[in-house]
């Protein structure tokens, strides 16, 4: 502990470069282990020194400082501690603004590590409101982040910025985040959506699908999702579509982006992501109006092919169940369903709910031979 404390003196901005570099390398090593992290988090001075070095002129030092912050904010407790301390110190270390600025700077070397720090911070639900307020305080910040995300060659120093996807996903945990995303004025969501089927990075894909899920679970946005433009629906369905050929008649039903997909079309590889997408669809099935739209757009036909594929190729029983849940609703006539809104009109007693979960679990086991 004392040795850790001693390092602080070598980590002052005006220290000799070699000393700073060596001390920081040591600290970075420590943040890799749970005990090391704990030791550092207990020393406010140490954290402040790390904050200070993120500005360092020397690229390696600055980078190591930010990398240490990534490790320190990896768990909820650390994230909260770093965030709170950054507010408290004099002068305040505006960690969110610094991160946003670095990410938006197309010449920044540190855009990627900073995006990971921000992703870590936003994961903590209790911090999201505050972070969102900071990001919103300048009108340009969010649109610029969205641009940095959407434009693949945005950063001229080859930062990939994939971690912006989980950042946006985390921000949509809270209603205000969803509201901002869905606002027609900035068309943020519009820019993010295509990455739900971005093959090159599972982080990007996963984050984007997470946004979709957050938005779909909020019934407020069902009308926005099922508008005539279909862009959100397409983002959900695209990863579930394969190369199967449909009749011309069926093709006509589908959203235009999904018509006549080529033989080379593949499905989402990650079963967790497939399941999330199917859960999105299930959420959209809650009202009669949206069910009608989903049927008219040929969702049933897509899921029919998907189910065959999942049983044969994908072979994930949770996904199969998730798919069947949607199909079970869509296949029914509205007269059979007999209610407008599943969410508001059906109440499941607690004991029943548990029973259903158990039944599902038992059923899942039988799905794959």
């Amino acid at each position: 502990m004392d040795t850790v404390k001693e390092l602080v003196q070598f980590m002052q901005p005006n220290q000799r470069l070699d000393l700073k570099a060596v001390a920081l390398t040591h600290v970075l090593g420590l943040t890799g282990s749970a005990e090391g992290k704990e030791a550092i988090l207990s020393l406010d001075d140490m954290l402040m020194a790390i904050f200070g070095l993120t500005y360092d002129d020397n690229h390696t030092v600055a980078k190591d400082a930010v990398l240490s912050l990534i490790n320190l904010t990896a768990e909820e407790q650390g994230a909260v501690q770093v965030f709170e301390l950054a507010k408290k110190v004099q002068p305040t270390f505006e960690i969110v603004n610094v991160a946003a600025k670095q990410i938006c700077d197309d010449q920044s070397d540190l855009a990627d590590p900073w995006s990971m720090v921000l992703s870590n911070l936003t994961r903590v639900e209790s911090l999201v409101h505050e972070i969102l307020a900071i990001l919103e305080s300048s009108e340009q910040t969010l649109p610029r982040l969205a641009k940095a995300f959407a434009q693949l060659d945005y950063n001229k120093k080859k930062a990939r910025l994939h971690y912006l996807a989980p950042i946006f996903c985390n921000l949509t945990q809270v209603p205000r985040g969803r509201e901002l995303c869905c606002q027609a004025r900035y068309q943020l969501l519009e820019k993010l959506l295509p990455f739900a089927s971005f093959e090159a990075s599972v982080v990007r894909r996963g984050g984007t699908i997470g946004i979709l899920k957050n938005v779909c679970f909020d019934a407020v946005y069902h009308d926005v999702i099922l508008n005539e433009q279909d862009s959100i629906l397409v983002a959900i369905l695209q990863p579930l579509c394969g190369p199967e050929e449909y009749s011309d008649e069926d093709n006509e039903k589908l959203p235009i982006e999904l018509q006549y997909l080529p033989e080379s079309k593949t499905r989402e590889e990650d079963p967790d992501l497939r399941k999330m997408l199917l859960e999105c669809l299930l959420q959209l099935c809650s009202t009669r109006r949206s069910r009608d739209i989903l049927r008219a757009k040929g969702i049933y036909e897509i899921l029919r092919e998907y189910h065959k594929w999942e049983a044969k190729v994908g072979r994930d029983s949770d996904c199969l169940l998730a798919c069947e849940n949607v199909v079970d609703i869509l296949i029914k006539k509205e007269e059979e369903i007999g209610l407008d809104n599943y969410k508001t009109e059906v109440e499941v007693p607690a004991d029943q709910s548990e029973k259903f979960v158990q039944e599902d679990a038992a059923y899942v086991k039988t799905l794959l031979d």
Partner: protein
Amino acid sequence: MCDFFVLRLNLMEELAAQKNWTDEERLELAARLDAELDAFIEGLEKKRYEEGWPEDRWQEEMDKHPFFMKKAPQPGDEVHPMFEGLQKLKYDPEENTRDELALNYKEDGNFYMKHKKFRMAVYSFSEGIKSKTENPDVLAVLYNNRSAAHYFIKNYRSALSDAQRALFYKPDYTKARWRAAQCAHELDKFDVCTQLCEELLEVDVDHKEAKTLLHRTKMKKLETERNQRREAAEAKRRLTRFHRLKDAIEQRAIKFDDQRLGKKKEVTEELLRPKFLPLEDHPVHLDNYPEFLFSDFQQQLPETATMSDCLATLFAEPMSCDKANNYRQGNVHVYYENRKAGLVHKVALEKTIAETIAEKGFFVSGGALLFYVVPKDTRIEQEFLNQQRRPMVYS
């Protein structure tokens, strides 16, 4: 003119000297003045005024005069010397700096734009660009304006490249960017258009037209891509269908009389395409009644049907030209022609089409199966059989 003026002056002096005038005196003076004036005019040298415009061509002259002309002289026209002088003042590189010159041409171009003379405007702006000004603002305006002129005459490609050059000189040129976006949309350059619209929206989130265009270009892109995918799927389907057909044909060893000799026997789509105009689908069967020079077509005939079945369908409705009712089941013979050998063969009516086709002398002709139907044991049959047939010659 000058003389006359002096004369008046003298008179005035004379007049001023006298005071009380009577009416008679006044009249007398007026008469005298008139007489003097006449005498003066009389005394002037007699010559015609020739400097002015000739009476018969004054309108033409008026049009040539730079002050009165109604339209600017077109390149190649003979120009009025005065116009030439003015032009020199305005366009001579020695009288003007490069910037002035460029701006003069810009003014001209704008003037033409106002009067919807877009081609002339393009010419003026081009001259302005040629003036070699190095002022980026002036260049940006010149390119932007030429882009506008091109846009109005629907030269979208030129309009786009000019707008982009204007943006090169002035990156925040909203007008040029907006036009570039519109051109890109017209040219189906969806990605270029999308990017330009996004740049516009970055500066002004509430740019309604840009938003609309962004959406329109997106929809157009999606549709184009869908159509390409559909065509690809269609082509693939056609190909598999053709391969199936080809396999079937090769399996049955069907022969074609228009297939070139010597080459490897290859079934091509061309061979299978019916050459008879009214037929467009693939598998075709054709019946010919030589007597009436009349053909009947049957399409989508199963190969397991016999010729009798075929005739039954044909004769189900009596033919209008067959007054004697010669053409009915049992009263006709069916032949096919072997054009290669110049022979005809009789078809056994109880054989299926597949069996007939498999006969040695049968060739598919012009992408179709061709049969001749004639009434049994009649003059018509004789004539048909005795027709001159020459074996086909191959090139």
